[in-house]
């Protein structure tokens, strides 16, 4: 039969829900989440074919073809009902075209004693592939039946040479004497014919065979009714298979159990032998149930099915189909993509037994592919991939699509592969078993990149001039996955002015060494060492409101940093390390400056401002220890961030460096995202309104150079003010509250913030807060709206009482 050869796989493209983060672009800022442009992520979940060699399950994408039961119900011709449990042998072909008679699908027991049983056969229906069909409505090529109108024609009476157009398909229930109404009925799923199609007699006969063999019907027949316009109205009259009513339901997991062997029943067995045979089968089935494992199906669904059984009275084929659909739906909804109802057993008793193959994993295979998709030897050590896999993907667990997705996400976060596939595949050697295949395409180990850019620097009055257009560029190289252990070296050199690169040449060289405790150790510690330089405008030397422009002071840092980061969860981590750096303070002309300056009312510059460095020479060298612990259990609830985030950061001076700096500089940041309403978590549901509470305390004991002073004001301190506009101090306290209310698919928010120096401005050498006439504290409030990545907000500066509109990128908290 045609369906035997058909094996269509169901490939599901699973979109990753926004968790694909490109590690390279989000190198420092953990919040930057960007979909990877160049990567191709795919999770292929091919359908699990039930490994019945003769009767493969076949799903097509075009039509949800329900699986079909093949029942070999013998009408109880003989004596009373006996219970027989068996697995029929489906004949390779099919018993004759379903003319009336007793011939019944496959596996009909000859004239037999009662006892219904179900085979675990899922006979596919997609016998006639749609492609063969003449185009539905558009095909003009059909023949008029050439018969008088409105007469009933048997299928056998039709001409074998004509192509008939079927204008209508009806199902007629003989037992009830009514036509089946509604196209939603499961019958319509079974028939591959559709109104408007053009079919030959042979095709119609084959269809009838399929219907007859599907197990739904005791009896089925196709008749045509001629229509005046030359088309045929097809009526399938049937008698549905039914069994005695049941009041108990049991669901068992038969995965990994050998299929029961079929014992042929000899046609000329004596009654006694037959009895013996059935008894044996019954015993076998009982044993099978006993050996089966409990299934995952929860009680609520179980009760639902029982309810269905109770309401229905007699167990009919349609009812079983509905039960199967319900059970399978639960499995599929919960992500058990490989779960299948394979059989109903124990029919004609009080209990319906539903046999399920849940999709037990027997093997986990990791494969590497080259660019052409051929299997090849990978450079990456398997343990690196294996430690990223959730344990639910290991042999002995039931395959769940969510575990597959998680594996995909975890592996993707390694940033080692350009293509990742997690693919469950049926195990040919073991029935009902699943082999999880992970196919990985590795990225190039080495890469180098050169990029150039033009930058326009705003000049006086904020307008760019022609001379301020500068060519800039970056040269970077990366050596990833050294020794297959995900170690990497990466370096980059950037200059925003290639004409004068010595002005601002920034470089970075970083070595990352993950799995410090060994790749098999679950402890996840990563060692990082880097050389860096940076140039930043110091917000300490900024004027307060109404102060003329303060001559800027640039802080150049060059140094070496080494630290160990231990990741506890994806977001929570603890890192500790050592920093050695040289800090140089420069003025506008790039010459070293030692003190801040201020424009005097007379117009001259007063150079007696706060000292810029600890040593007083404009150059400081120091070594200090640095530690940072982050606790972050925030998560997305329908797109809104909810949870808690605590960060404690500590810089501990060691007394090594210019003037032997010994200090303890600490910062504690606490942020709470409180949902104000309980919402259901599901895609498409609105996010809850969220109240964000934020507190930040910073303090420094010991030597405090001005570049390490805490600054107040700015988009990440107190909104509505410029960076450092409120002051520079030794101790800092910032409090903020924000209320986010979802509107459509974005949110609006209102906030109030306050920053205070706790009177510690005078404890910074030279009192830069007072020198530049800043307040030392300030509040602001305002409202804003989030537009994609951009926040537009109106913030009122409480010190001056004036408001302004700001556009900012990213989140405040």
């Amino acid at each position: 039969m045609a369906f035997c050869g058909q094996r269509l796989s169901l490939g599901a493209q699973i979109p990753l829900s926004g968790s694909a983060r490109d590690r390279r672009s989000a190198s420092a800022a953990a919040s930057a989440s960007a979909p990877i442009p160049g990567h191709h992520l795919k999770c292929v979940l091919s359908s699990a074919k039930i490994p019945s060699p003769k009767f493969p399950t076949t799903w097509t994408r075009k039509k949800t073809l329900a699986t079909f039961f093949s029942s070999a119900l013998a009408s109880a011709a003989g004596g009373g009902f006996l219970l027989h449990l068996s697995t029929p042998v489906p004949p390779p072909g099919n018993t004759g075209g379903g003319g009336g008679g007793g011939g019944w699908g496959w596996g009909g027991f000859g004239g037999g004693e009662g006892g219904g049983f179900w085979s675990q056969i899922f006979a596919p229906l997609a016998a006639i592939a749609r492609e063969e069909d003449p185009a539905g409505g558009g095909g003009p090529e059909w023949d008029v039946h050439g018969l008088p109108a409105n007469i009933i024609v048997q299928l056998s009476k039709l001409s074998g040479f004509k192509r008939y157009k079927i204008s209508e398909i009806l199902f007629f229930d003989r037992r009830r004497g009514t036509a089946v109404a509604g196209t939603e009925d499961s019958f319509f799923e079974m028939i591959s014919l559709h109104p408007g199609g053009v079919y030959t007699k042979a095709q119609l006969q084959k269809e009838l065979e399929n219907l007859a063999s599907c197990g739904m019907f005791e009896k089925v027949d196709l008749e045509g009714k001629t229509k005046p316009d030359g088309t045929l109205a097809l009526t399938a009259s049937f008698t549905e298979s039914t069994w005695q009513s049941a009041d108990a339901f049991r669901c068992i997991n038969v995965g990994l159990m050998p299929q029961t062997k079929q014992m042929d029943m000899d046609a000329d067995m004596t009654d006694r032998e037959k009895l013996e045979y059935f008894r044996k089968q019954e015993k076998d089935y009982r044993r099978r149930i006993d050996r089966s494992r409990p299934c995952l199906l929860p009680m609520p669904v179980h009760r639902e099915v029982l309810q269905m059984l109770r309401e229905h009275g007699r167990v009919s084929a349609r009812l079983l189909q509905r039960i199967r659909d319900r059970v399978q739906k639960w499995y599929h909804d919960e992500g058990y993509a490989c779960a299948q109802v394979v059989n109903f057993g124990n029919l004609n008793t009080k209990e319906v037994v539903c046999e399920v193959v849940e999709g037990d994993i027997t093997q986990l295979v990791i494969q590497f592919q080259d660019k052409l998709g051929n299997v090849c030897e990978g450079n990456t050590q398997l343990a690196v991939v294996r430690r990223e896999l959730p344990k639910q993907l290991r042999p002995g667990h039931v395959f769940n699509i969510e575990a597959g997705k998680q594996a995909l996400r975890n592996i993707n976060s390694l940033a080692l592969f350009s293509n990742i596939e997690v693919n469950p595949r049926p195990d040919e050697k073991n029935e009902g078993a699943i082999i999880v295949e992970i196919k990985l395409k590795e990225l190039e180990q080495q890469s180098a990149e050169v990029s150039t850019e033009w930058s326009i620097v705003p000049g006086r009055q904020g307008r760019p001039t022609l001379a301020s257009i500068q060519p800039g560029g970056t040269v970077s190289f990366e050596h990833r996955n050294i020794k297959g252990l995900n170690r990497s070296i990466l370096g980059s050199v950037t200059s925003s002015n290639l004409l004068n690169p010595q002005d601002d040449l920034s470089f970075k060289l970083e070595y990352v060494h993950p799995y410090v405790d060994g790749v098999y150790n679950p402890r996840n510690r990563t060692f990082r060492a880097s050389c860096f330089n940076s140039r930043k405008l110091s917000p300490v030397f900024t004027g307060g409101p109404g102060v003329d422009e303060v001559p800027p002071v640039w802080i150049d840092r060059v140094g070496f940093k080494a630290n160990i980061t231990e990741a506890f969860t994806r977001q929570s981590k603890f890192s500790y390390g050592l920093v050695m750096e040289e800090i140089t303070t420069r003025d506008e002309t790039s010459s070293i400056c030692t003190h801040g300056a201020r424009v005097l009312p007379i117009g001259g510059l007063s150079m007696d401002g706060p000292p810029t460095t600890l040593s007083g020479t404009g150059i400081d060298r120091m070594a200090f220890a640095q530690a940072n612990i982050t606790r972050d259990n925030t998560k997305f609830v329908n797109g809104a961030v909810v949870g808690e985030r605590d960060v404690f950061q500590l810089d501990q001076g060691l007394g090594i460096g210019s003037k032997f700096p010994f200090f303890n500089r600490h910062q504690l940041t606490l942020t709470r995202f409180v949902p104000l309403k309980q919402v259901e978590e599901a895609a498409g549901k609105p996010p809850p309104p969220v109240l964000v509470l934020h507190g930040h305390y910073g303090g420094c004991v010991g030597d405090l150079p001005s570049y390490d002073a805490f600054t107040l004001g700015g988009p990440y301190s107190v909104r509505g003010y410029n960076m450092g506009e409120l002051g520079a101090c030794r101790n800092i306290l910032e409090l903020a509250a924000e209320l986010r209310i979802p509107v459509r698919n974005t949110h609006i928010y209102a906030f109030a913030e306050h920053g205070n120096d706790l009177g510690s401005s005078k404890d910074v050498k030279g009192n830069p807060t007072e020198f530049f006439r800043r307040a030392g504290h300030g509040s602001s409030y305002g409202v804003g709206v989030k537009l994609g990545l951009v926040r537009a907000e109106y913030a009122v500066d409480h010190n001056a009482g004036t408001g302004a509109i700001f556009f900012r990128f990213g989140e405040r908290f």
Partner: protein
Amino acid sequence: MASRIPREWFGIQQFPAVTQSKLHELLGKLKEENVSTLTILLMGKGGVGKSSTLNSIMGERLAPVSAFQSEGLRPIMCSRMRAGFTLNIIDTPGLVEGGYVSEQALEVIKRFLLNKTIDVLLYVDRLDAYRVDSLDIQVIKAITDTFGKRIWQRTLVVLTHAQLSPPDGLNYDDFFARRSEALIKCIRLGACIKKQEFEKSAIPVVLVENSGRCRTNDNGEKILPDGTAWIPNLVEVITVVISNGSKPITVDQKLIEGPNADERGKFFIPLILAFQYFFVVKVIQKAIKQDIAKESKPLWELRDMGVANRKF
């Protein structure tokens, strides 16, 4: 103190005999208390009459005075000796410039005063300035920041231009009382001194009239509208202040630069570090462990762990 030997105080001879004898008597009293030098610091806003007061006390024209512009851009110290007693008076430039306290002036004064001991501060203001404003508070604050709160125990408020006719309907004494009260309150605010503490050691207010048109009494002494001779009175109040038990202020590097905040608490850093490790880092670590334990696992994971028991 001053390295060179101060000149003899000849200016005293210009004073009327009554004043001279009064001054001698007061200085003698001071000598009895083992005080042989007296350093007086004059501070205040510009144009209030600091230099004139200096000249009046010394009886010489030592500091250049002009009605229309500030003359003293840098502090000057005048030292005079009389009968083994040295009187130093330091005149300083006005502290206000362009509506703000001039840090430059303050800086210059600080540098000038380095390694000197100040016995008395005369905070000079005008009696005929009717109001006090935030600028006065800022000036007081600047002085406090420079010398510390202690300076106010050794302070006299000097109100110049004492010979005035008060605005309509006000009695002279009333006006004086209200003006001095306002100024004292301003000092209390600017120096952040608690009220009770302040009341314990009240700052005396003295009136001064430097003008040449100042009336004199029968003895030729310059007198205030109420008839007291103001120079002996001023010196008398100064001696009272000196003998009130407080210590003179020695200006050294530490006082000028303020307490070095960098040194404060350095000793405790190891303790702070230990506290941070045990009470912050450990607490957060524990919270992370709780998070991991509490993390709501998806149902499929729970089922896999075998805790579902067919309930869900």
